[in-house]
């Protein structure tokens, strides 16, 4: 797949910022031409610094960065040239799909860099034809970049890189802000570019479940150092790596059931795809069906009175628009429920939540909170019932310290200072941010900022907390930590509504799932029932079930295991009885 020529070389490379924060320490890394290198690790570990050291933004663009050692790309020492001198060698795709596109139409975006380099118009024409063909974006060329979906925007960003005919493509978390369809689109594009056209790929991401099978090598960067540099199937052979980097579900299942496969070099390795694990399980004769797994309390049998009720609610953003954003909708959510709202971008998830929080008023129908029409609540009263945590916590922060930020809503409610202090300390302890109370909220890590945003809403003690994509962009350790906090809140009696694209989070933690599509509720049922549906039915709504669900489906189980624990337990039953049978415990 890849050649022997060295493309990127980090030689004793260190980087620090503002003369104190060490971002990378004495790094030595060799990447060969045509390799697909997957760079991962905890947030803040130095992954983006590594990317920016390859494309030259460090040290030339990021003021205050100091380097030692050198990075050489295709024979050129990066620090000796300006980043714009490197663009025909290194193409970069950044995380934010909106703000990295700087021109009005796709065609302008593609031609912009070549215009800046002074390339002749007929040569631009030739490259445009070639790149549009390779990345399948011909139908988008004349469209405004504002009209594209997140996945299409990232595909355009990749295409814009290719116009420069780079040898290396560096992607810094390009799928972090995308829905599953967008993620798939980006990964397919990159995979094809690597496989078919031999580009060297440096791909930074947190999602091991999806990315690991595509990579030739995994480089794990933590605390500024490379702690693993191995083939993906050997990653968890590195001692203690699992503590910093939770296993992708397939590897976890394989390890817990004692399954190994033969690696490329013939030695023992971890399976990386559902198909590989299924084949290995079949070979080891561990496959079988445990019967029906126990289902959660059926939805609709919850006897508690609804805390939120929507009665024939309809909404459209503009009166003259024919299409309704929310079609006549009935919905009941009871006290103490934990509900996932899923669906592709544009399905109406955010609009539904804005209707519940009162940010939008329904065109017809009624939103009831505690059986009282939502419109009758004033903003200050409403926050005691409904709290809404935005996807991007930066939209929320108005204060200079975490303490003041959490206290902000309480001060708006004109509570006494002692009461405010008590509540701030209580929620900050609960979400483990009490150590940062005097820090500036904007300067915390992404996971910490999310927790501050949740704390600022939680301090007002709302009955219902709505969270918009709280796990987006978090590494798996922080994602698990955050979900643990959210589950704590649920167990304390809060009603939680979570908008999410992360199906593993849905399967692992959330008992009830609502699927929205085209502004209407398609399914509203127990999460297990949702995932019991066939892959084809799920893919109609761009839902990719978690690997364990896919695996149990391939193994022919009657109902899917939702979590790794369930799977392992059911497998233990199968092994104990020797034959596929009805089992006890988690299985009925």
């Amino acid at each position: 797949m890849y050649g022997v020529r060295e493309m990127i070389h980090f030689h004793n490379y260190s980087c620090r910022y503002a003369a104190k924060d060490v971002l990378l320490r004495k790094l030595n890394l060799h990447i060969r031409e045509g390799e697909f290198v997957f760079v991962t690790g905890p947030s803040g570990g130095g992954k983006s610094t590594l990317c920016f050291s390859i494309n030259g933004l460090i040290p030339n663009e990021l003021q205050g960065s100091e380097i030692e050692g050198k990075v050489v790309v295709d024979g050129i020492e990066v620090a000796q040239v300006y980043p714009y001198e490197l663009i025909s060698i290194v193409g970069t795709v950044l995380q934010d799909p909106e703000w990295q596109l700087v021109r009005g139409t796709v065609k302008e975006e593609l031609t912009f860099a070549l215009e800046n380099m002074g390339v002749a118009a007929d040569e631009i024409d030739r490259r445009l034809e070639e790149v549009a063909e390779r990345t399948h974006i011909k139908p988008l060329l004349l469209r405004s970049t504002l009209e594209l979906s997140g996945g299409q925007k990232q595909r355009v960003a990749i295409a814009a890189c290719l116009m420069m005919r780079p040898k290396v493509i560096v992607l810094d978390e390009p799928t972090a802000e995308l829905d599953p369809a967008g993620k798939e689109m980006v990964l397919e594009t990159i995979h094809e570019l690597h496989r078919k056209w031999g580009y060297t790929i440096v791909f930074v991401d947190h999602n091991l479940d999806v990315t690991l099978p595509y990579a030739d090598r995994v480089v794990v960067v933590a605390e500024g150092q490379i702690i693993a540099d191995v083939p993906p199937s050997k990653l968890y052979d590195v001692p203690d790596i699992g503590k910093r980097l939770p296993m992708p579900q397939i590897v976890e299942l394989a390890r817990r059931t004692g399954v190994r496969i033969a690696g490329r070099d013939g030695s023992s390795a971890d399976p990386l795809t559902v198909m590989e694990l299924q084949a290995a399980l079949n070979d080891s004769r561990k496959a079988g069906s445990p019967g029906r797994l126990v289902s959660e309390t059926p939805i609709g049998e919850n006897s508690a009175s609804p805390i939120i009720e929507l009665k024939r609610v309809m909404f459209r953003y503009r009166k003259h628009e024919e299409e309704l954003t929310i079609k006549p909708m009935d919905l009941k959510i009871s006290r103490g429920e934990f509900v996932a709202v899923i669906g592709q971008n544009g399905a109406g998830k955010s609009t539904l939540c804005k209707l519940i929080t009162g940010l939008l008023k329904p065109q017809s129908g009624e939103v009831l909170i505690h059986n009282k029409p939502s419109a009758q609540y004033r903003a200050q009263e409403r926050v005691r019932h409904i709290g809404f945590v935005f996807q991007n916590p930066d939209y929320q922060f108005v204060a200079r310290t975490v303490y003041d930020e959490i206290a902000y809503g309480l001060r708006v409610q004109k509570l006494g200072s002692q009461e405010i202090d008590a509540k701030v300390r209580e929620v900050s302890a609960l979400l483990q941010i009490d150590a940062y109370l005097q820090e500036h909220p904007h300067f915390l890590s992404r996971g910490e900022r999310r927790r501050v945003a949740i704390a600022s809403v939680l301090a007002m003690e709302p009955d219902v907390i709505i969270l918009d994509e709280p796990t987006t962009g978090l590494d798996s350790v922080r994602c698990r930590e955050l979900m643990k906090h959210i589950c704590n809140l649920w167990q304390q009696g809060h009603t939680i509504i979570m908008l999410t694209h992360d199906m593993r989070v849905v399967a692992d933690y959330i008992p009830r799932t609502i699927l929205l599509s085209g502004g209407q509720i398609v399914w509203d049922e127990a999460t297990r029932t949702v995932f019991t549906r066939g892959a084809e039915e799920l893919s109609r709504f761009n839902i990719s079930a978690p690997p364990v669900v896919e695996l149990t489906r391939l193994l022919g189980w009657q109902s899917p295991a939702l979590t790794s624990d369930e799977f392992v337990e059911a497998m233990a039953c199968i092994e104990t009885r020797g034959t596929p049978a009805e089992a006890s415990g988690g299985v009925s």
Partner: protein
Amino acid sequence: MKLYYPSNSLLHYMHGFTKILTFGLILSIMPFLMDKVSSLLVMLFISLSLIAYIRPPRQQRLLLIPVIIIAISMSLSYFFADMGGEVYARVDLGYWIFQISSGNLNYAVLLFLRTIIWCLLFFIILFTTNDEDVVIGLKKFGLPEFVTLSAALTLRYWSMMIFDVKTVMDAQYVRGADFRSGSLWTRTKRFASVLIPVLFVFLKRFRTTSYALTLKGVGRKNKRTYYYNPQLTVLDRRMIGGAVIVLAIWLAVRSIYDL
């Protein structure tokens, strides 16, 4: 919101430079030189006819509502000044004196008409010219590269910036900060508090854009290629010539008849 919409009017086919020169400069000067309501009404009629000719969609037409509101608000300021003439009504409000007089009425109507005409002329440019043509048009005036790039970025990002500001306001609303109730001071404080998250969000956005521009070769010293570089056509030359002639005729008529 995108102001440009594709259509087949002659104005849609013209070069950005032609439209900026004709409607943004030559025809925009004329209302300055008109002191009579009748002259401005003729100009207004011509501007409205041009708007009708380019058939803007409903969304664009609705923009006339805020324009009219702004024009009326600005014109009302004349009623707090003394522009002479016969006084019809006068109310002493302490520091301010509200006065309806023939002079005030005349100036208010003139300002109202001028404002509407200018807005219509700029709408003609923005409704019929896509972002790329606006930038190419500006470039033809000899503006430096960074100015045209700034204009292009503004056209690209302004709707996203408005969206961000609105989201920040929503985020504060769901925390109990109601921008529609409370005393003027309370509301002012709440609006001011929005500026902090807006500033931080924009700083992060602009950093991404700055990196993106560097990685797309902005700042290189070499001569730039203009891949899209339309030339002025006969239609453009006729339009510019026609606008210059209209201005010249108007100046002549004005000086002869003292209009």
